[in-house]
Structure formats: C-alpha cells, structure tokens
C-alpha cells in the first residue's frame, strides 16, 4: 500500500503538470489569435518596395515581394471579428487593432462584454496584456512565450517573430492552378534559416492580384500541420486584401477558426502614444 501512496502522490504531480500545460490551452481557440494571425500571415510591415523587376520570369521571391507590396502599408487600423467554433457553441470576438511595421501592434477588445476593454500591446519582442477586470498590466514573460497560445499552434513567440517571409524562406513557383475561380501560382517556401516555426510552407497566390488565397504549413518531416484559406478579396485603398481567413489545425479534429476584417484602413496617422504601455490603461 505504501508504494501505492507514492503512486497516488505521483499521480497528483502528474495531473498537476498537466494542469500547468493546460494553462494556455483551451478547446475553443483563442482571443489573441486574431492579432497574431493578422500580424504573422499578413505582414503589415513596410516591406521592400524596390522589386519592380521582370515579371516574365517570376521567381518565387519576386512574387512574394509583390504580395508584400500589395498587402503592406506603413500602418493599418482594423476592426475584426473572430468566430471560434467550439465543440459546444460558436463565439465571436471583436477587436480593434493598430499596427505599425511588424514590431508594434496594439489591440483592444470590443466584445463580448466580458473581454471588452482588454488591451494587448506587442512592442519590440515584448508582450503586455491589460485587463480592466483586474486592473492589471501583465507581461507574458520568459518561457511562457514559448507556450502555444490557447490551444492554437502558434506560440506567443511566433507572434513575436517579426521577420519578413522573404528573409526567412527561399521560395519557388512549383505549379499553377485555379482556386476560388482564380488563377493561382503555387509557391513553395523552404526555410533558409533554422529558427523558424515552419520549415516549409506552400502558398497559393492569386496570379493577377498577388493575394494569398491559401497557405499551408508543414513540419520538417513534410507532415501538413495547418492550413489557412483566405477569401473575400476586396480592393481597399488601391490594394487587394483578403477580408476573411479560415484557420485550421490539420492534426486536430474541428472546424477551425474564422477571422473577418470588418473595417480596415491603411496608412493612417497613428499617434505615437498608442504603442506605449501608457495606452494600456
């Protein structure tokens, strides 16, 4: 019976460890995801605008540059809603975000009521969250950053990765196809550096508008990990922009998470104080 006691204690420990690793996990997906995804997938940064080279022999890189040109802006302000398909119910979270380059972003949650007023600031590789309910500014620090964000496959760290795709990946056009009724070029991106989350990616890019319509992320082994579908491409301030994105973890069962931009503005005047900790309160 003694070793069974020990076993029981060990089991407590184990359940405890599990509880710890559950911290950032929920079956439902995440609030933060919207911000993260929009900053990771659709770089808001002022990327290189120089490549106006030959279009005939389109290299992967030049296509990515064009995507960058199309999507990027000095800054952007947007409102979005995120629909999280839970096992039980769906829920919608709306937020307003300001971002400038890749290094600064600020979001405020508008609904649901419980989360309204929660603000998040990402600044130079650091992340703070302010919550009116506790009236506290909490910094997500150290190894917490490496944990995945609420059951998603992105960690806080991913969210902090502000490098350009063209800096990280070698890309080449592998084939052409049609997707959502549009001609697309399929790009294969292979990491050039070692410290990236995904070793290989595949992007389906509208051959005319240079908007990504689908993106797949692969593990080093070639295993498909997740897929993003981008839809509802609209012309906004002279650029083509996908307003809806559906994100799905391919290893897990479930319907994924849907993001929708409800309002978006590029190249606005954003007061500098937005991107300071003072604006959290």
């Amino acid at each position, binding site marked *: *019976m003694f070793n069974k006691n020990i076993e029981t204690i060990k089991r407590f420990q184990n359940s405890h460890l*599990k509880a710890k690793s559950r911290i950032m996990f*929920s*079956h439902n997906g995440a609030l933060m995801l919207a911000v993260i995804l929009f900053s990771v997938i659709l770089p808001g940064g002022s990327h290189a605008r120089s490549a106006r080279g030959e279009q005939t022999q389109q290299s992967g890189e030049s296509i990515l540059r064009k995507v960058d040109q199309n999507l990027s802006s000095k800054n952007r302000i947007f409102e979005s809603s995120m629909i999280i398909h839970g*096992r039980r119910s769906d829920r919608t979270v709306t937020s307003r975000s300001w971002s400038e380059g890749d290094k600064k972003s600020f979001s405020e949650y508008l609904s649901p009521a419980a989360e309204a007023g929660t603000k998040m600031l990402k600044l130079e590789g650091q992340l703070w969250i302010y919550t009116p309910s506790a009236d*506290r500014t909490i910094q997500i*620090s150290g190894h917490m950053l490496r944990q995945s964000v609420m059951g998603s496959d992105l960690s806080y760290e991913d969210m902090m990765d502000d490098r350009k795709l063209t800096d990280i990946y070698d890309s080449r056009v592998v084939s052409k196809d049609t997707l959502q009724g549009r001609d697309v070029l399929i790009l294969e991106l292979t990491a050039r550096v070692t410290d990236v989350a995904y070793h290989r990616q595949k992007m389906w890019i509208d051959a005319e508008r240079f908007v990504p319509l689908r993106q797949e992320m692969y593990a080093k082994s070639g295993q498909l990990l997740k897929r993003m579908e981008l839809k509802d491409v609209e012309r906004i301030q002279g650029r083509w922009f996908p307003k809806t994105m559906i994100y799905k973890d391919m290893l897990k069962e479930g319907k994924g998470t849907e993001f929708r931009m409800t309002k978006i503005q590029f190249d606005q005047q954003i007061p500098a104080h937005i991107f300071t900790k003072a604006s959290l309160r």
Partner: protein
Amino acid sequence: MKKFLLKGILHDRGRSLLPVIVVATGAMLTVLLYSWLTGVMGESLEMSSNFMTGDVKVTTRAYAADADQFPNDLAILDSDLLVEELRKEEPAVDWVSRIRFGALADFPDSAGETRGQGPVAGWAIDLFSEGSLEAQRFNLAASVVRGAMPDSPGECLISEDLASRFNVEPGEEFTLFGTTMEGGFSFTNFIVAGTVRFGSAGLDRGAVVIDLNDARNAFAMQGATGEILGYLPETYFDEEEAEAVKAKLNAGWAADTDEFAPVAQTLRDMPGMGDLLDYTKSISGFMIFIFVSAMTIVLWNGGLLGGLRRYTEFGVRIALGEDKGHIYRSLLWEALMIGTIGSVIGTTIGVVIATSLNIHGIDISGMMKNATMLMPSIVRPAVDSVIYYIGFIPGVFSMVLGNALAGAGIYKRETARLFNELEV
C-alpha cells in the same frame, strides 16, 4: 438441553466467563484489525477520492473523455440544478461541485506591473457554505503554513513554495490569469489568505485553492461546474454502493444522446484507479485472511483448552452414566453458545470502538513529522458491513472446532479407568 446449557453458561460464571472473555476479545480484535487494515489500505484510495475523483463523479460525457485535461469548456452548464436533482435522487451521497483549472499566477510589484509569474494548478471548491466538508477533504486547515484559511470571497490559499519563490506574504493580492469556460481571457485578483504545504513537490511548486463561487465568476462559469463529485457516507470507497449509484444515474441519462449529457463514473473508472483498487483489495484481502486465520487458531486453541479444562467434569459425567454422545453434543452446543455470546459482545465492542474512531479519527500527527495535506494525519478505521460479521468467523467457528477436537477425547475414555484417572 439447550435451555439447560444456556442456564449453565449464564449462571456458572466459572465455567463460561473466561471463554466468553477470550472469544469476545478475539472477536473484538478481529473487528478492529479488519477495520483498521481496511482503513489504512483504503487511505490512498481515499486520498484520490478526496482530491480528484470522489467516489462517484458526474461530468459531461465530453468532459469525461478528456478529463485529464480539465476541459472546462465542456463543463456541466446547469450544474446547480443537476446537483439538486442528484441530492433528491441519492440523498445519502454528499454531492459537491468542483472546478479544476490551470492558470498563471501573476504577482504585481508596487506599480501593478508583473513582478513574477508562475503556472499553477487550481482547485475551486466550496469553501464557505455552511456544513461544507470540502476544506476538510483537503485537510486544508491543518496544512496552513502561514496566514489563515480564507473566510471571505476573493481570498485563496496558495502553496507555500510558490509563495516563498515570489516573496508573497499572506494578505497580498495577485492576479490569476486563465481561460474562461468559453475560451476567453480571465483575469481575476485574489488575496492570499494563507499558504499551505501539500507535501507533494509537484503541487507545492504551484497550486492554488479558491472558492467555487470565485472560480465561477473568474471563469465565466455561472451556474456551471467542471465536475460534480459524490461522496458516499462511508469513509472509504465502497465499490458496490458506488457502482449502484453510478448504474442508477447512468440508466436515467441513457436516453440522452447528447455528448454534453451528464455521465457518472466511479473511482474505479478513473485512469489508473482500477488497478489501485484491485491491488488494494487483494492486499487487504490477503492480510485480513492471515489475521483471521491467526485469530482462528488462537481461539481454536482457546476452545481446545476450554475442552481440556473440563476433563474432570466429563470424567465425572461419564462415570455417572451419561451418554458420551450426549456429553459431546452438549459440549458443542455450549461452545456454539459461548462462541456466539462472545462474538456478539466482542463485535459490539469492536464496532463501537471502530465507529467512534472512524468518527473522531486517530491523530497520528505525533508519529509523523511534517504533517502534509496529501497524507492526512488523521487515520480512520473503515466502517462497513463486514465488521458486523467478521468477528464471528474466529469467534464461533473456532470455538466450536476447538471444543470438537478437545471433546473427541471423551470417546476414548474408559469408565473403568476413570476413577483412577480422576484421582477422586
């Protein structure tokens, strides 16, 4: 004859008192041994039951499938109603709601910014309701190292090691950063009422105990709960009864095919517990077998001695012309009566002692330094149906057997030699 014998037993104390005392003592010891052993053996089960599983656990089916991840998004939504229903259905069982959660404890500096943070495993239990046994199940009051038990909403207990790692004093406020039932952020401030030591390094590194209502507010779980645990009145896990409760409840819910319909599970159904249960049962069964056998031999010996002791008496009776078979039968009847009387007395005393020890518990904290939460310092003998009859096995059976063997000598005796033998 039986009446006569009984009269003899009752009146001739010289003949019956000692055997009755011996049988009663033996029966009492057997009862105590059984209940103590069962209690000690059941302790780890009890610990699991108190901390994690309850005797019966009701969750949604979806929650049950992923229970080890504490999926509060799959919680029971109208749990208060369900608890009421359960109380009506199984009034003998103490039904309690609990929420298990993982969270980040964030300790602020004077400016309200993060000074330090660490992951914690959390229990939300009913701390404040009148008559709630929850704090007792966790042995909380005895485990407080600094500060005191929480006595109002918003107060909580955190593990001592966590507190000392971040220099947290009782009375300080910190923020619990977790996930609401729906998957949103949850930030709630709590005041550290006291620190506790759980005695398990893993838990001591980071655990927090908060009140159920606070957890419901914090995780947007109004009226909901992750788990409803049922505690049977017996101190130690009574599998039959638990299974009966489970079967009855599940039968009632069988028609509901929803994955969020409630489902009852017993302690046995929890991962690893089946093994533990079987293991415990077989070991205690084995030990009890040995003890009862030893007791049986002792009492059999007692019976044998009792028989031998009356050597003279039988000689006289044979000499007086009493039939040997009659003497033998009367001896056996007497043994049966003495055995029964002794067993009844012994069992009664044993049950009274075991029950009172069960209620009050034996504080062995003096024997163990560093009383811990996981290892309750109060040991309680088990009280179940077995204690009412186990004493009779050595008591009656061996008494009769011993006398039967001793008495067998009666047939060997020859009347002619009797007087010689008896030196009368």
